[in-house]
């Protein structure tokens, strides 16, 4: 509020000061010191020495002859000495001048709102060796230095979130320039909508609290990439920009002018890295798939290096046509347990930030699978498929009746089969929902106990966004003779079967199944030959559910049951059954590694290996090695750390969120996360300027400051006052000397 008071004070005093304005007008109060010489003069008139002097006639004669001269000189000296104090007070108050001030109504300050695009495309380094962001900062600082004293400034930094670094306008230009210099790259796509919202907020605050300011200027420093600025075509963005341009003059300082003159043909980027196998087990080999794109305008070469836990695994040359993408598959052998870090990096180019990408691969020794049975022995074939020999192989099976589900922690299992259950209690529904929500994998298998109407009601399929189940179940269809239809084996679930025609997947006779309708945001994984759904899947928060329309028991098993006298299929007896159950588990649990590989500003969410102590504090270790406590949400072993800018600023001490490996620590346990860039900004092609609003003024760099500034240099009143002060001091000395000589 002090700023606005100052500002108002300045504006009110412009006319009496003949157009001169003061940054710190209250310092003019020092001008009362100008009364000191007068006070000393009057004091001397009342306090004097007394002497008897016989030659007084000569003194009287001299006094009467020179009285006028002496009086004039004395008053002149008095005036000069008072003027010294007045000039000092003026200088302390930091004067500025506006040439328009000769017209009393014209003098007004400008509110400068600097918007600095700090998205990582501004980290591109031209041949000059200085990044676009550094150039933008230099130009912004030069603009601030050249602006008239008394003009307030605000600063908004544009990254994946726009942030008002200086929201309340400041008059302290030194501190402001320091803040500009400290702006760092934000590793995300510039969010134009956010920027508009923030600019409007700053403008509204400025209008509310400093109505005297009539001239507001928004100056944007950006490289104007097409990927970011294509949002300017959105009607909603244009509407909000119109509100801004109604209140302020918007000037864009295009950094693209520096770039367009130079070739941008060498920008390779790693746009994706993943494993093709889903879950990775110890001492197995998984294919790491790296996607590389050439964002340059010419064909170019680079070298891709893959590292596992800091050790090089493979290096390959990559040659790509302009804007071409290549997927490079590298087999990597994982011998260690736990979170393993794979890094894909390209040779350095002029935009270095998109040349590296990290992948966290949780390497498992075994997977714990829980089978919840709605009828006795219905999981027998599943157990036989996953753990044919007890204690051997990658899976450890636990079988419980559905009624016993509340006695066990679901989070201890990698996947849960729910087989042939008629209906669920609300507690069971809530437990399953929370389990999947926090990254669990649930596979629902139908059977003769299943009651479709109950399922639909209990799982709220009428509200698809709340439903864990991917389908609305219709009815149990019996008496058919149909087969699986894997189509082109395109789906990852059935893709391995494509190379094994003898797997008999297409030959399994199916007589009964639960017919269904797919819900929104769900997918058919495997179909039946009559077009019905055999397997469907749905991603629910961090986890995944799969729904199987068939029963997984053999005819002789169901034949003994009183309710069901007919078998649904002969599937468990076919060779394709065990690998299909493996695939179901692999596909359902595939997302458990996905949330370990996120983009910047995504939340870090997952489960600790075991349930940590209740009072254990969540800590976050950043790629630069710093470690701090964080206020994340915790529910048992599940945790969530929100990577919002405010949190990052408070935790890391700067607004820069680096890509790399983040480690969430809770007690003695930790979980690694690979946090990577959204490579949208790697495409450096400039936007077509014609799509930008006409009210957005484009300025070449050299003209921006001159165009924005008043014609009169702002520093000249200060300089002239200093010169006048020096002249006054010289005049004072001369007058005092002259009077001492009595001339």
């Amino acid at each position, binding site marked *: 509020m002090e700023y606005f008071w100052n500002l108002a004070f300045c504006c009110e005093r412009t006319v009496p000061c003949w157009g001169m304005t003061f940054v710190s007008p209250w310092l003019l109060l020092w001008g009362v010191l100008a009364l000191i010489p007068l006070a000393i003069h009057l004091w001397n008139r009342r306090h*004097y020495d007394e002497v008897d002097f016989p*030659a007084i006639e000569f*003194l009287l004669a*001299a006094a009467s002859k020179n009285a006028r001269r002496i009086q004039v000189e004395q008053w002149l000296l008095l005036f000069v000495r008072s003027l010294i104090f007045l000039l000092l007070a003026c200088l302390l108050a930091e004067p500025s001048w506006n040439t328009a001030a000769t017209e009393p109504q014209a003098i007004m300050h400008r509110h400068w709102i600097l918007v600095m695009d700090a998205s990582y495309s501004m980290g591109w380094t031209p041949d000059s060796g200085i990044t676009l962001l550094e150039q933008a900062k230099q130009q912004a600082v030069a603009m601030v230095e050249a602006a008239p004293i008394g003009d307030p400034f605000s600063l908004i930094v544009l990254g994946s979130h726009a942030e008002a670094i200086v929201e309340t306008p400041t008059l302290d230009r030194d501190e402001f320039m320091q803040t500009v210099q400290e702006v760092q790259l934000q590793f995300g796509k510039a969010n134009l909508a956010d920027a508009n919202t923030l600019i409007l907020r700053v403008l509204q605050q400025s209008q509310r609290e400093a109505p005297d300011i009539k001239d507001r200027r928004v100056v944007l420093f950006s490289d104007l990439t097409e990927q970011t600025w294509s949002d300017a075509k959105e009607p909603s963005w244009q509407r909000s920009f119109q509100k801004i341009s109604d209140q302020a003059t918007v000037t864009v300082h295009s950094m693209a002018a520096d770039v367009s003159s130079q070739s941008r043909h060498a920008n390779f980027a790693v746009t994706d890295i993943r494993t093709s196998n889903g879950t990775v087990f110890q001492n197995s080999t998984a294919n790491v798939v790296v996607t590389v794109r050439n964002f340059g305008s010419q064909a170019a070469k680079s070298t891709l290096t893959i590292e596992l836990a800091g050790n090089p695994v493979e290096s390959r040359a990559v040659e790509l046509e302009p804007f071409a993408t290549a997927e490079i598959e590298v087999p990597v052998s994982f011998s260690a347990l736990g979170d393993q870090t794979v890094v894909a990096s390209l040779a350095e180019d002029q935009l270095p930030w998109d040349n590296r990408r990290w992948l966290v691969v949780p390497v498992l020794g075994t997977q714990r699978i829980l089978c919840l049975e709605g009828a006795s022995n219905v999981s027998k074939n599943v157990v036989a498929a996953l753990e044919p020999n007890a204690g051997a192989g990658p899976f450890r099976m636990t079988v419980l009746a559905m009624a016993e589900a509340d006695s066990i922690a679901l989070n201890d299992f990698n996947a849960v089969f729910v087989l042939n259950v008629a209906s669920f209690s609300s507690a069971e529904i809530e437990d399953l929902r929370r389990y999947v929500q926090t990254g669990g994998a649930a596979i629902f298998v139908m059977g003769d106990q299943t009651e479709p109407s109950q399922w639909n009601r209990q799982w709220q399929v009428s509200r698809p966004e709340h439903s864990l189940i991917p389908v609305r179940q219709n009815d149990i269809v019996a008496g058919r003779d149909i087969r699986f239809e894997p189509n082109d084996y395109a789906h990852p679930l059935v893709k391995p079967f494509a190379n094994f025609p003898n797997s008999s997947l297409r030959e399994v006779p199916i007589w009964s199944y639960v017919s269904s309708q797919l819900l929104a945001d769900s997918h058919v994984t495997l179909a039946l030959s009559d077009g019905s759904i055999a397997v469907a899947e749905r991603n629910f928060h961090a986890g995944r559910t799969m729904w199987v329309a068939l029963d997984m028991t053999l005819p002789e098993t169901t034949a003994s049951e009183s309710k069901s006298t007919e078998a649904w299929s002969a599937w468990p007896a076919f060779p394709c059954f065990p690998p299909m159950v493996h695939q179901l588990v692999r596909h359902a649990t595939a997302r458990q590694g996905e949330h370990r590989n996120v983009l910047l500003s995504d939340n870090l969410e997952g489960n600790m290996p075991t349930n940590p102590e209740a009072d254990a504090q969540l800590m976050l270790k950043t790629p630069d090695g710093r470690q701090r406590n964080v206020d994340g949400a915790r529910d048992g072993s599940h945790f969530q750390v929100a990577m919002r800018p405010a949190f990052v600023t408070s935790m890391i001490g700067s607004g820069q969120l680096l890509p790399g490996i983040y480690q969430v620590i809770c007690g003695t346990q930790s979980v690694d996360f690979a946090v990577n860039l959204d490579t949208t900004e790697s495409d450096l092609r400039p936007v077509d300027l014609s799509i930008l609003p006409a009210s957005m003024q484009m300025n070449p760099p050299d003209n921006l400051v001159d165009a924005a500034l008043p014609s009169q240099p702002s520093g000249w009143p200060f300089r002239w006052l200093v010169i006048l002060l020096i002249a006054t001091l010289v005049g004072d000395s001369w007058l005092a000397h002259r009077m001492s000589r009595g001339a």
Partner: protein
Amino acid sequence: MKTNLVLHLLLDFSSSMQFRAQNQNYPNNNSLSRLAVVLAWLAVEQRDAVSLGVFTGKLDAWSGIGNSWGHLDNAVQLMDQTQPQPKTSIGKSLHSFSNRIRKKGLVIVISDFLVEIPDAMDGLNRLVHAGHDVVAMQVLDASESTFPFRRTTLFRGVESKQQVIAEPIALRKAYLHAFQEFQHQLQMQCRKSHIEFHQWDSSQAVDQAVASFLLPRMFA
């Protein structure tokens, strides 16, 4: 050595001669008296006749002519008994003295001569015309000739009620110019009238004044 000289000492006993400079320990008239007594003593010592007169506005007292030590005692007592008065005119006093003595001799007039120059010259010329050898010995305080004041000062007249508050720094040059012009005119007039002129700073020792008076005569 007897020279038949008759020495007439005329002392200005006006109030202005009592002016004390701020940093002086002795009043002017004491210095003046000492100077007169020394000169008289030298005359009596060589058996010359001496007379001593004191004046303010007229000739207030005269010792008569004599060459004995008793006469010198009488002259000293005369000075002690005389009270300072405001000065009105040197000319009248010297006229009065000239009318009173018949015997020609050497007349030494000891005064500050801070009066109108015509008045002072009128009296001195009267003595010259009466056939005396006349010596004008001007006694001044150092502050009158150098005007050393710097702080704002109230200057009070000694013989008049006039006073003025002044910035000495601003007035110094003008004052010194007026004072030196007066001194110059006084000396020029004396030279024209063949009157020997001496100036003595009262802050100096008496022997210096006597030496400055006698030395030129020893080699004349």
